[in-house]
């Protein structure tokens, strides 16, 4: 530890650590080079946490890694300079840069599950940086790693390291990765969306751990995210990026209180979308005391009953593993339940898909989370939307084409899109095509499985507005599966809260969202980050007070 103290004392807070000037990075796709980062300046002082926010494709990640003097394969620097503690990273040799990476600048990636090597134990991967850079010997590195695991509040810090990555949860992996990044006590850590893939309740714990350890070691950090509320908890200063350029930069509180640019304001606005709730006694779907399991394994759904009124939206919320998607599979008939029944429009639905007739198939449609995998990349829009039209309504030729153009208009795309391949569409447009495909069948009920989770906030808002408009026009009911409370506020009439395969609470939106809550709903709702920069601090204090 003597070494650490020495290192600590040489660190003067406030001195400039990283300086990026006019950084330009271009990337290659299909033999064409296009600019990803278009001249961005970043100045970071020791011990400072800078938040980088923006939509996907804004160049946040590319810029974050660029702070390590690294460009992903297929990308290259084509202008500007990166100076880290007096070292010009772009002029340095590969070997010099390699020696800095991991030891003085380290990186925490978005998907911990993919970024850990499946073949090695966690402890070996954690200490690798320190031992390979010759900073510690193996035994002191192991001791230090266990110490870090403890500080990051991982369970069983002395033994968790002997596990393989697939044996621990996502939130734990993300903390182990933070320990790995800390192992050399770097001057700077790049956090690249470290909590995006986590559930809200897990996210709170990881955010708290990261914030505590960064403060403890006075490490400077660049925190990349698309979630404003998250960045508000973590950063001293926020930079908003769009299309590879800086939109606005200000200290966190100032930025939250009065955003100046129109684009920044629009990011803020998404969270304010909210639907007036209403209900109807006319039920389109009734799920009655359902049990379901995969194979003979543990029950995924345990005595679940829900009902969906006609022309209304029922949002099913819960963490991953709560059984939300399994519920959708039961309703669609993909997974026959082991007990209970599904009634549609007042009649019992056969439990297995194969036994349902074409008419009941038509009336329940589904939209998936990832339009990239839900659309066949070799089919044109014409085929994608045309297929259900031919299958359910027997449309062909001119009539078919006219109907496709109609549907495209409903989803606010013009007829020029009819010949496009999914690869030629943006993420939001692809999701619109998925919606049109579901609409083509003229269904009574659409099951939306996390349909906005993969989209940026502004696109999310557009898709949600589209869904609401279609509901008003065609009296469609939605069973809307999501983990995002802001989305629920925007679209739901009723809410079903699920946890571990059971329904915790259900009812009208205002009733579920206002106290008193059952314990789990309380935990879930209080874990949703708010724009208030003191939210995390207050929440942690409140929870600590409760446990005492």
């Amino acid at each position, binding site marked *: 530890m003597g070494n650490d103290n020495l290192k600590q004392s040489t660190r003067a807070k406030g001195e400039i650590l990283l300086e990026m000037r006019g950084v330009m990075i271009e990337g290659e796709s299909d033999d064409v080079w296009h600019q990803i980062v278009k001249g961005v300046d970043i100045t970071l002082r020791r011990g400072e946490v800078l938040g980088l926010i923006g939509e996907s494709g804004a160049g946040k990640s590319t810029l974050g*890694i660029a702070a*390590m003097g*690294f460009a*992903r*394969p297929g990308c290259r620097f084509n202008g500007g300079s990166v100076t880290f503690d007096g070292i010009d990273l772009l002029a340095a040799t590969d070997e010099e840069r*390699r*020696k*800095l*990476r*991991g*030891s003085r600048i*380290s*990186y925490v*990636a978005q*998907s911990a599950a*993919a*970024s*850990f*090597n*499946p*073949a*090695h134990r966690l402890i070996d991967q954690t200490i*690798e*940086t320190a031992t*390979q*850079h010759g900073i510690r010997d193996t035994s002191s590195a192991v001791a230090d790693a266990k110490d870090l695991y403890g500080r990051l509040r991982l369970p069983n810090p002395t033994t968790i390291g002997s*596990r*393989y990555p*697939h*044996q621990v949860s996502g939130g734990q992996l993300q903390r182990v990765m933070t320990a*790995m990044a800390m192992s050399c006590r770097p001057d700077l850590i790049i956090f690249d969306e470290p909590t995006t893939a986590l559930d809200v309740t897990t996210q709170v714990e990881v955010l708290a751990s990261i914030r505590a350890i960064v403060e403890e070691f006075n490490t400077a950090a660049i925190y990349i995210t698309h979630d404003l509320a998250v960045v508000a908890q973590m950063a001293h200063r926020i930079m908003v990026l769009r299309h590879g350029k800086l939109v606005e930069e200000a200290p966190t509180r100032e930025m939250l209180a009065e955003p100046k640019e129109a684009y920044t304001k629009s990011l803020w606005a998404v969270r304010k979308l909210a639907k007036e709730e209403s209900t109807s006694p006319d039920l389109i779907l009734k799920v009655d005391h359902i049990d379901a399991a995969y194979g003979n394994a543990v029950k995924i759904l345990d005595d679940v009953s829900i009902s969906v009124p006609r022309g209304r939206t029922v949002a099913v919320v819960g963490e991953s593993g709560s059984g939300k998607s399994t519920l959708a599979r039961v309703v669609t008939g993909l997974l026959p339940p082991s007990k209970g029944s599904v009634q549609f429009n007042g009649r019992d639905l056969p439990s297995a898909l194969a036994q349902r007739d074409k008419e009941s198939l038509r009336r329940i449609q589904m939209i998936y989370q990832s339009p990239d995998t839900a659309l066949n990349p070799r089919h044109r829009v014409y085929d994608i939307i045309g297929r259900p039209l031919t299958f359910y309504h027997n449309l062909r030729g001119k009539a078919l084409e006219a109907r496709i153009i109609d549907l495209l208009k409903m989803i606010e795309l013009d007829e020029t899109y009819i010949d496009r391949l999914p690869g030629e569409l943006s993420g939001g447009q692809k999701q619109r095509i998925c919606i049109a495909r579901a609409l083509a069948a003229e269904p009574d009920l659409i099951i939306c499985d996390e349909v906005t989770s993969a989209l940026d906030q502004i696109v999310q808002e557009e898709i949600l507005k589209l869904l609401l408009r279609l509901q008003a026009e065609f009296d469609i009911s939605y069973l809307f599966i999501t983990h995002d409370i802001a989305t629920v506020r925007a679209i739901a009439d009723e809410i079903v809260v699920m946890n571990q395969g059971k329904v915790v609470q259900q009812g009208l939106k205002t009733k579920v969202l206002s106290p008193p809550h059952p314990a789990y709903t309380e935990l879930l709702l209080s874990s949703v980050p708010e724009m208030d920069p003191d939210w995390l601090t207050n929440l942690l204090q409140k929870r600590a007070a409760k446990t005492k």
Partner: protein
Amino acid sequence: MTLFIVSIVIFSLVEWLPGDFTKAILGQAWTPETGAAFEREIGLDQPPVTRYVNWIADVAQGDFGESFASRVDYRRTVAELIAPRLANTLFLASLTAIIAVPLALTLGIMAALYRNSLFDRIVNAATLTTISMPEFFMAYLLMLFLSVKLHWFPGLASVDADTPLPERLMRCALPTLTLTLVIVAHMMRMTRAAIINLLASPYIEMARLKGLSKSRVVLRHALPNAWAPIVNVIAFNLAYLVVGVVIVEAVFTYPGIGQLMVDAVTSRDIPVVQACALIFAATYILLNLTADIISIATNPRLLHPR
């Protein structure tokens, strides 16, 4: 189980071989009467199902029966015929494997490590050449240059049980070299591809961002996850060394099992053909099983369940 199904397939295929066995054996001495008498003697007059059941029951006890061809003058069992030949083939296969597998892995890893370098391109071009040349052509080329012109190695590889080991190694040099050239290409390219395929994964980017050296990234982070495809190709090629060497054996007149089988087919020596085919099938199954076991053993997800 697989072997049992294979045995049925082998037996049926041999049944359908064109030509009359008795005519092939008796030659000039064949008359309808002598032919029928001979068929009775060796049991060929029985219906196929009975013969299959008898054969498979014997094989299950390790008895491959007697060679048909041996009946005319003296008796030899199939096992006696095959044993020395199989030993020769296994000797050649092991020798080649000992050289080829490490060579292929080293070349493959080096090529992945120095991707798109001059070294990578040369190795790729060379292996592409050897993979696309017919093996008999390569065998004759090697024979022409290394044996006929340079006199480094003997051109023929005729060995018998009494050949001493150094002499044996010397004679096997050319066939070994030929086979090595043929199989290294396949294995090396798969090793390279399997590793390069992994280099795009997030955990490799993470390893790079941890500032690890290039060789450590490839050897410690990519290779352990690449074993499954590599091992499968190695198994496939080792099986080929036993099963597919007939052409190389023929070119170098090496007394291996491939040659024996070809001879047995020509002389309609059914028990020998069946035994050889069964050995080949068993080799394939055994090697693939080994590959599967290694694939599982190198996968921590399967080895250390949650």
